[in-house]
């Protein structure tokens, strides 16, 4: 079989966000593979290590720098990578058109993607891709096993978690708790340099986004910052309760 693992390159969570010309500026910032997507790469590798015969292809859509994230996936153990290079910012519905076409071309039967993207805070890509392919989906998985074409696992729903089974092909989203992603070892980093990283142009996918991004701003809510010294606990507690009751009026 063939597994596609979709990944994004995003701002490291420790970096601060800057806005230039109404858009988030990423130049000179530390960029990493989205941690949510890392769980997908790791899970594909673990499925293979558990005996599933599969090729693992890492996929990313984005500017030239995105290939660094793909190289990380190759160094973790993915077999090859496809980079659809574009400076356009595609919303998840538009992006799903690219991913679905690659899945069809590559005859993949399982696609992994992170549960939420750390740049657009979106959950939409997996479901949109599944719909285009007419595949089922399992989102927010926290445990997976594959036996033949039957995927069994656990995932988070609105209230608590559910156990499920699903027949491939399917799209699956990953999250913290599913596994512990490995660090690429030096020999594997060296080996990955010889692996195929194919570039594709966005043109052939015939994508026309329906969303426009107009502006971005950082709205910092001003806070009161009334911080009390708690050495005298009863006095500080009394003062805080008084502030919450009579100034903020948030408790009875």
């Amino acid at each position, binding site marked *: 079989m063939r597994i596609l693992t979709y990944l994004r390159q995003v701002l490291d969570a420790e970096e601060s966000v800057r806005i230039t010309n109404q858009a988030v500026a990423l130049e000179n910032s530390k960029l990493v593979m989205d941690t949510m997507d890392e769980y997908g790469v790791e899970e594909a590798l673990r499925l293979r290590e558990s005996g599933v015969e599969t090729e693992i292809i890492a996929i990313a859509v984005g500017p030239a720098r995105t290939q660094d994230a793909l190289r990380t996936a190759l160094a973790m153990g993915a077999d090859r990578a496809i980079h659809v290079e574009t400076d356009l910012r595609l919303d998840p519905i538009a992006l799903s058109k690219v991913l679905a076409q690659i899945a069809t071309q590559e005859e993949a039967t399982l696609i992994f993607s992170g549960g939420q993207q750390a740049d657009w805070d979106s*959950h939409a890509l997996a479901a949109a891709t599944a719909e285009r392919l007419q595949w089922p989906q399992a989102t927010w998985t926290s445990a997976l096993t594959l036996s033949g074409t039957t995927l069994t696992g656990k995932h988070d*729903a609105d209230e608590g*978690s559910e156990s499920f089974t699903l027949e491939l092909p399917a799209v699956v989203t990953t999250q913290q708790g599913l596994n512990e992603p490995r660090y690429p070892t030096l020999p594997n980093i060296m080996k990955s340099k010889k692996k195929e990283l194919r570039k594709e142009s966005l043109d052939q996918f015939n994508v026309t986004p329906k969303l426009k991004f107009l502006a971005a701003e950082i709205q910092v809510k001003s*806070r009161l910052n009334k911080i009390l010294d708690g050495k005298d606990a009863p006095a500080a507690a009394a003062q*805080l309760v008084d502030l919450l009751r009579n100034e903020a009026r948030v408790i009875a």
Partner: protein
Amino acid sequence: MILIVVEHANGKVSKSTWEIVTASRELAHQKGGDTSITALVLGGGEGSNIAPIAAEIARATDQVLVADLPALAQYDPELWSAAVAQIATEGEASVILIGASRSGREYSPRVAIKLDAPLLEDVISLKASSDTLTAQRYTYLARVTETIEATSPIAVVTIKPGIYTPATPRTESAEQFDVDLNLPTPRLKVTGKNIERSSRVGLTEADIVVSGGRGVGSAEGFTQYVEALADHLGAAVGATRAIVDAGWRPYAEQVGQTGKTVQPKTYIAIGISGAVQHLSGMNKSKTIVAINRDAEAPIFKIADYGIVGDVSQLVPAILTELKK
């Protein structure tokens, strides 16, 4: 027509749906004239209680469509998206409003693809002018507010919970109609459920959230300080990733990048230092209260009120004060 999909639990319309009613009324006003609001109630099967839900939402909309079908006994993204897309097409809806719950965010993209419509996801504001919708939403782990725009005769929108003021029902009721649907067979088979239903209010619905981090000391400390305070205030309970990883609390309570995003009126952080991943899940809370031993902890930078000191002394003192 604006179509809203009603979320319900235990025979009642969810708070998030009352918020969506407000959003739909604003939108209908902006679109002008004869824009009507239609509610769609999905559910059914043995022991389901759809009638009171339909009656409840009938007092807030112009028309209620009820699909009370055994096939809709359990939520499934393929079922829900098929149902919503079919009703939207038949009713020539211009905007479809869905709650940005985990399930809403899971099936709404399928609706958008079926209708060849744009998806405006997890929005906090919405403006309409003829065929154009402009919305604001949070991005970059809720650190950035972005404005997006879609020009289309039909659009799918999910509304972030806790932003719009819940609508109040009228006395008169709109007409209800039963609808039949062509539904697919769900392919994700749910074989077991582990519902983490606590006696407390849900994290994303609560007016007050009390959360704990490593500074509570232990799982016992969490119960003693965080849960005790939450129960006294009728609040929901939240946790940091660190203590979920440590096994002190279930994942369902995790607030932050990989957990839930909350925006309560009051967020009380106990023994939480304030890593950026945690802050992204709660930094939009109206009032933030922090109790932490370390005066340099980042949580104090975004706190409205706080005490620097020992959690094990301060929380019991606060409880004593509250009970006076």
